[in-house]
């Protein structure tokens, strides 16, 4: 099965505030000793809420724009 794309977390920028973990609407993130991680690859819906919640810009959920073919 192809792995679903998920938001990218830059742990070097992350300050472990936990806003993304608390705000994820589908509880796809958990806080580990290394920082936030996706607990289950398929749970994340790529809603991009975590990106907006991160105060230090450590999470990126980039979008590509295409015309429907």
């Amino acid at each position, binding site marked *: 099965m192809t792995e679903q794309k998920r938001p990218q977390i830059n742990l070097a920028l992350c300050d472990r505030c936990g806003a993304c973990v608390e705000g994820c609407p589908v509880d796809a993130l958990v806080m580990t000793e290394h920082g936030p991680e996706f607990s289950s690859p398929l749970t994340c819906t*790529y809603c991009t809420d975590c990106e907006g919640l991160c*105060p*230090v810009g450590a999470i990126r*959920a*980039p979008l590509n*724009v*295409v*015309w*429907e073919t």
Partner: protein
Amino acid sequence: MKTDKLVHIPLFSGLSDRTLQAVALRSFERTLPAGQVLFIEGEQAESCYFILEGVVRVYRMNTAGRMQILARLSTGAPVNVVSLLTEARKNRANVESLTDVKAAVLRSADFEWLMAHCPDFSTALLRTFARRIARMTDLAAGLSLNSVRVRLASFLIDLAGSPQTAGGWTQDEIAAEIGTVRDVVGRLLRDFENRDLIRRDRQQIILLDREGLYREAKRSSDEISDANKPALM
């Protein structure tokens, strides 16, 4: 570094062979992984970069500790040149690589040497800044004449008609490009989605309704058949 890599940078493409050789002699190539901080705001400006490959974001942290995206720069763009030209000589913003990046690096002293000894280098820099000023003037005009809705629809049309760049665009970066904030971009994207103008499929924004989007962008319907032309950004 080799001159054949430098000629792909618009700033250097019109330089004389002599100046190009001088730039090549004084610059070196640096490779950075995604997520690396290239410049930190407020630190002494010691060098500028010219992106050979990849994408970076330029940002500041506000007093509340929130990141504010200022720009997203890709292949060919000069980075931190303004910091070297200001009297304070401090980095004016933070810069971070969003993808793996290859860049030509010029140290401050070499940059100044080129400015002093190679008039075509200085002229090329002036032209680059003139283009930036013209673009900012267009943006300012767009801010006063067009609503965010118009600017976003226009941006989506242009982006979909351009070659997809590595790294994609975040809503913060889109907001910085069209002169608004992330929340507004998110709200308008949801509105476009509710009206079947676009569809979200994980990391893709799929544009569905050409006529509807061109109407939102206040663009002529004549452009619809020409939707795949290169973007004007």
